[in-house]
């Protein structure tokens, strides 16, 4: 049993239409790196050019927002679920 990463609807087209993928990873950062390593087209939608998670990309481990844990250093173990949840933003100017 590995770490399951749930892929949100708007990104599934870049992951072979899959809604999840599993990886062996000891941190959230490792799992996301493996996700974008396997599905390279996901990278630009999850991370800025500087390699930071985009502000509207919310990542949860077992339902907890990683911003309140250790961010991408949040430890993960087999059986954990990482969810990528969009927030939506925009504006006229």
């Amino acid at each position, binding site marked *: 049993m590995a770490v399951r990463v749930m892929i949100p*609807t708007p990104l599934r*087209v870049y992951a072979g239409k899959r809604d999840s993928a599993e990886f062996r990873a000891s941190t959230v950062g490792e799992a996301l790196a493996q996700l974008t390593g396997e599905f390279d087209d996901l990278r630009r939608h999850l991370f800025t050019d500087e390699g930071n998670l985009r*502000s509207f990309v919310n990542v949860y481990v077992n339902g907890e927002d990683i911003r309140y844990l250790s961010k991408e250093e949040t430890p993960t173990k087999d059986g954990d679920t990482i969810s990528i*949840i969009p*927030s*939506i933003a*925009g*504006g*006229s*100017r």
Partner: protein
Amino acid sequence: MSETLNLWINGALVERIRQHGAETYPNECCGALLGRATDAEAIPTRTSREVLEIFPLVNRREDSPRNRFFVTAEDANDADKAAQAQGLDLIGWYHSHPDHPARPSEYDREHAWPWYSYIIVSVQNGNPRDMTSWRLQDDRSAFVPEEVEIRNQAKA
């Protein structure tokens, strides 16, 4: 290969979106588009989707609601649950541009997700005007317009 993007929507839903923009003016309104997205692979040059319901939301940008909107992850999750409860998919979002054209801004582009349809309605002096729809290009460099096809449009 050029791809035609079509967004079908009922005239009554168009009016509800426009009315939401009028109600929240001079602030931006926002909400979710629920419906069906079908890639008509048998016709590879055409991709269409249909809005069958909307899910109005509260603009959470209390600091700058006149030119910004924000849907929290929790609100987005509620919209997704509403879609699932009706046997629909969450296929996009709408928001208004108060006293501004119905064209995506650079801020819209920087914050957009791919795949979703983004409807924008321009509200001028409290009156809803143009309504357009857009989808983010795969490389995030720009939006591609979706042709909005209105079914059962109410006669003026």
